């Protein structure tokens, strides 16, 4: 049982160390006394016996130390001693310690917060059964132009999914889900509510390995258009149904139809989004013919890989099926390929790139912080040359000296780390709330692993910032100090060179950060300044959906819409009101392919024309002030039963009718009534999303009555539109008290929403850049002040010998500006590379933007000059007599 003995010894040595030390003293004294007794027995006098014994015994302190060094925990004792020593030295220079700790706290805090988000968003395995084998499968078009618009991962058509699942064997199973928005009406007079929902195939939950917390999951028989079962999210269950488990088995009304609640999902289940309130079956409420389409790309497909099959193998089977489908549907947009994506990346979507950019910026900041602390430590090392030299002369090993200095930087970084972690609690919370559309934002918090990361950061930054100064301040040259007079040793010169090098690197990185921030800001300003193509001031939008159960024929739908428009237009202060499916700036949403009967059929395999699909009321264009270029707007005559008409955007006319007059021509839409629509008007272009290129749009009359879902009421008012929201909601309630309105947003907000993240990221990077500029200028000031102090007597002699003050000023300024200018050059060169990295998130801004580069150069030179001016000025004002007397 040797390990037990060792363990016991370990415990004794840890907790009874003082007693062990006393016992060692006793033991050694006992030995000494026996020696004395022996010597006396051999006939020596008392004094001689003692002296002889002591002589033989050697240095008792050394013996004690040597013996103690064999004890376990000796390293801990040494470390404690270093820490005590380091803490004492740090507390002696409070100002230095405070600055260094604050810098490290900021840097470590920022890095920790960002890591927390990156981990939750990109790295954390989802809480499903064996998540590593889950993969999203998308359709993928080979057309390069299509891919450059960001359509690399296309939704899957339901019939494609059905064929993949039936005809391939590489996956254990495949499941699908689609978006849904459902009007949840009250049973007992509760307010109607438009909830975000998903429709999942019956096998989705078993594929993910998720058991409902209450009740059961879907069955295959329920996954059909008439299926009327629903799974509640835990959130909805608690919020709306008071957490009563009796709700399972009861009926609730979705879009006016009764659905049976069969279960409640667990609280932790927030896939794919925490906003999802309930799940119905995939086919539920779907017109059966839509499920047969190969070109309605609205499903998301999750597949679970079989353990014995590689992803490439499984995918190649799906690809083969998809290519056959493509060949069979050459004129429809059926993709040639499929593309896989991990679940995490799928959820991270557009967030990944900005996160990576921010991560790089934070890494830069952390490095700059370390360099700055290193710089401060080098300066302090200069002040402590004598101490180090004396200790070295007294026998301290170089390793011991380095270890002690490293302990100091470790203490700084550890204190900074504690501050940083506290900071990151707040910063993470703020970031997740400020960042729109951050996936799994609710699950992001600082936890053990993040703490571990922060600790690793602390050690890394301690090494980074401490090692170089420690090594440089313990070189042999330091010991020469003892031989030489008090100043002007070789050591201080190499130290100045070291500080200048550190500073150059620091400035170069600052320049990179500044330029990245400048590019992002410019891109953001360009985005803000874009003209979206319609009125954005004093415009309020409001979403609503008509339950198809109640509004089961076009006449009822038209009646509601017209009644709503009449009532809203009659409100005082309302200039105009209109109805549309999607307003500009709110995203691409629906699109559809069409053919042009007047044109000869396109070559087989060529992609069919495609345009955004909108339905609008006659007043839509005048309300949003979208200009009419030719033809006419819709009138209230463009409705059910009348000749089919369409209005197109100018891009569509230019793109598909080049050199022709589009008016009077026709568009043929297979999915929309399989009919020809006559072009009666051409209107100005609008942007579907700020920052995205203009796309062709076709507008159909909303008074056809066949669209009931996802309607948007658009109201232009004479003044601030928000106060109108309540009167308008009252009008809706007067027509139909079960009708909820959702997403009350002004046009400014809709456009702003798509800019929030851009603004957030550019502001953050700018903040990092400004911070590093501040650090760099402090560093610059410190180096030059140090230089001036070192050269005091030299400058004194120069002035005494007749040097002009301006000459001295110029000399010192140039000396200080030299690292700044070299750093600037290096930084500009590196920025060209960094610009390429962020090019994909820039809008209307070149990666090498002369204005930004020039502005950054000017800023840096000015800031550097200011930082250098004070010490240089002081040098030029030196009183030579004073300077020479300080010798």
């Amino acid at each position, binding site marked *: *049982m*040797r*390990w037990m*003995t*060792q363990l016991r*010894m370990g415990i004794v*040595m840890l907790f009874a160390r003082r007693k062990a030390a006393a*016992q*060692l003293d*006793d*033991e*050694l004294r*006992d*030995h000494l*006394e*026996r*020696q004395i*007794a022996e010597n006396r027995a051999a006939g020596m006098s008392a004094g001689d016996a003692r002296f002889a014994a002591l002589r*033989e*015994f*050697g*240095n008792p302190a*050394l*013996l004690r130390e*040597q*013996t*103690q*060094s*064999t*004890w*376990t925990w000796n390293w801990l004792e040494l470390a404690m001693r270093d820490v005590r020593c380091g803490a004492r030295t740090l507390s002696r220079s409070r100002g230095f310690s405070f600055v260094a700790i604050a810098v490290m706290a900021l840097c470590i805090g920022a890095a920790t917060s960002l890591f927390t988000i990156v981990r939750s968003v990109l790295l954390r395995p989802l809480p499903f059964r064996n998540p590593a084998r889950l993969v999203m499968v998308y359709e993928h078009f080979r057309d390069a132009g299509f891919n450059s618009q960001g359509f690399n991962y296309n939704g899957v058509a339901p019939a494609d999914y059905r064929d993949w699942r039936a005809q391939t064997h590489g996956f254990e199973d495949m499941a699908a889900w689609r978006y849904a928005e459902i009007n949840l009406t009250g049973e007992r007079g509760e307010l109607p509510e438009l909830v975000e929902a998903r429709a999942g195939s019956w096998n989705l939950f078993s594929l993910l390995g998720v058991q409902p917390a209450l009740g059961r999951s879907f069955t295959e028989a329920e996954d059909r258009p008439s299926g009327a079962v629903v799974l509640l999210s835990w959130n909805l269950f608690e919020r709306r149904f008071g957490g009563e488990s009796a709700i399972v088995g009861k009926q609730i009304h979705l879009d006016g139809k009764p659905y049976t609640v069969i279960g409640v999902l667990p609280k932790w289940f927030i896939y794919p989004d925490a906003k999802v309130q309930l799940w119905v079956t995939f086919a539920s409420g779907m017109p059966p013919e839509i499920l047969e389409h190969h070109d309605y790309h609205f499903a998301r497909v999750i597949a679970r890989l079989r353990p014995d099959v590689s992803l490439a193998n499984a995918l190649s089977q799906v690809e083969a099926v998809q290519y056959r489908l493509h060949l069979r549907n050459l004129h429809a947009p059926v993709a040639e390929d499929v593309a896989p994506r991990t679940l995490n990346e799928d959820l991270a979507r557009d967030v990944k790139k900005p996160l990576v950019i921010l991560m790089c910026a934070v890494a830069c900041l952390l490095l700059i912080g370390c360099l700055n602390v290193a710089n401060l430590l080098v300066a302090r090392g200069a002040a402590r040359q004598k101490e180090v030299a004396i200790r070295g002369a007294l026998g301290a090993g170089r390793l011991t000296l380095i270890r002690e200095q490293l302990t100091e930087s470790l203490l700084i970084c550890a204190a900074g780390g504690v501050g940083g972690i506290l900071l990151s609690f707040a910063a993470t919370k703020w970031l997740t709330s400020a960042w729109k559309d951050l996936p799994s934002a609710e699950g992001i918090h600082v936890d053990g692993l993040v703490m571990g990361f922060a600790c690793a950061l602390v050690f890394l930054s301690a090494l980074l910032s401490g090692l170089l100064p420690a090594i440089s301040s313990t070189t042999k040259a330091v010991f020469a100090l003892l031989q030489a007079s008090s100043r002007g040793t070789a050591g201080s010169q190499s130290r100045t060179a070291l500080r200048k090098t550190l500073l150059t690197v620091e400035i170069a990185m600052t320049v990179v950060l500044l330029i990245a921030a400048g590019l992002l800001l410019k891109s953001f300003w360009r985005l803000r300044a874009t003209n979206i193509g319609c009125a954005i001031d004093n415009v309020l939008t409001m979403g609503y959906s008509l339950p198809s159960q109640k509004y089961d024929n076009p006449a009822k739908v038209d009646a509601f819409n017209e009644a709503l428009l009449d009532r809203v237009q009659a409100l005082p202060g309302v200039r105009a009101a209109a109805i549309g499916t999607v307003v500009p700036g709110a995203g691409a949403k629906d699109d559809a392919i069409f053919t042009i009967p007047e044109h000869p059929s396109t070559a087989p395999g060529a992609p069919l024309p495609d345009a955004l699909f909108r339905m609008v009321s006659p007043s839509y264009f005048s309300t949003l002030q979208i200009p009419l270029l030719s033809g006419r707007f819709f009138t209230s005559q463009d409705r059910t039963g009348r000749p089919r008409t369409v209005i197109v955007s100018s891009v569509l006319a230019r793109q598909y009718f080049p050199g022709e007059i589009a008016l009077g021509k026709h568009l043929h839409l297979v999915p929309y009534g399989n009919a020809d629509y006559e072009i009666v008007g051409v209107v100005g272009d609008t942007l579907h999303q700020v920052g995205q290129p203009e796309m062709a749009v076709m507008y159909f009359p909303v008074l056809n009555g066949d669209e009931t879902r996802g309607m948007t009421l658009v109201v232009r008012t004479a003044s601030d539109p928000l106060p109108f929201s309540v009167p308008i909601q009252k009008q809706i309630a007067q027509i139909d008290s079960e009708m909820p309105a959702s997403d009350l947003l002004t046009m400014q907000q809709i456009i702003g929403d798509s800019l929030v993240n851009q603004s957030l990221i550019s502001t953050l990077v700018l903040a990092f850049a400004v911070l590093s500029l501040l650090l760099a200028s402090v560093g610059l000031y410190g180096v030059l002040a140090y230089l001036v102090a070192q050269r005091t007597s030299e400058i004194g002699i120069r002035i005494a010998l007749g040097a002009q003050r301006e000459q001295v000023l110029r000399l010192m300024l140039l000396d200080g500006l030299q690292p700044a200018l070299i750093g600037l050059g290096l930084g500009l060169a590196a920025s060209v590379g960094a610009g390429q990295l962020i090019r994909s998130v820039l809008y209307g801004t070149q990666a090498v933007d002369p204005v930004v580069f020039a502005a950054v150069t000017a800023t840096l030179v000015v800031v550097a000059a200011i930082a250098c001016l004070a010490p240089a000025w002081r040098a030029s004002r030196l009183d030579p007599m004073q300077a020479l007397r300080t010798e």
Partner: protein
Amino acid sequence: MGKPSDLVQGTLDLLILKTILLEPKHGWAIAKRIQQVSGEVLQVQQGSLYPALHRLEQQGWIKAKWAESETGRQAKFYALTAAGRKQLEAETANWNRLSAAIDLVVTEA
């Protein structure tokens, strides 16, 4: 200071273990005993004895107990542990092999 030159590196542990095989001894007695048995050839310096004793104790080969010594004072007595006994056997075997080998080389010439 340092290790005694007249002791082959690493053999001090073996000597200590062997010396306390029969009965527990305190540090001074161990040094004396080694000196005596080796016919005054091996001189164990305190500078190496005590670090070695403490190291062996930390390693669990020997254990220490405070007891009254023959002079009536408290002294620290070191005794072999079961693991130490095995270690002694192993080290003895190792020593025998090594010394035989050295002997071979030296006498061969």
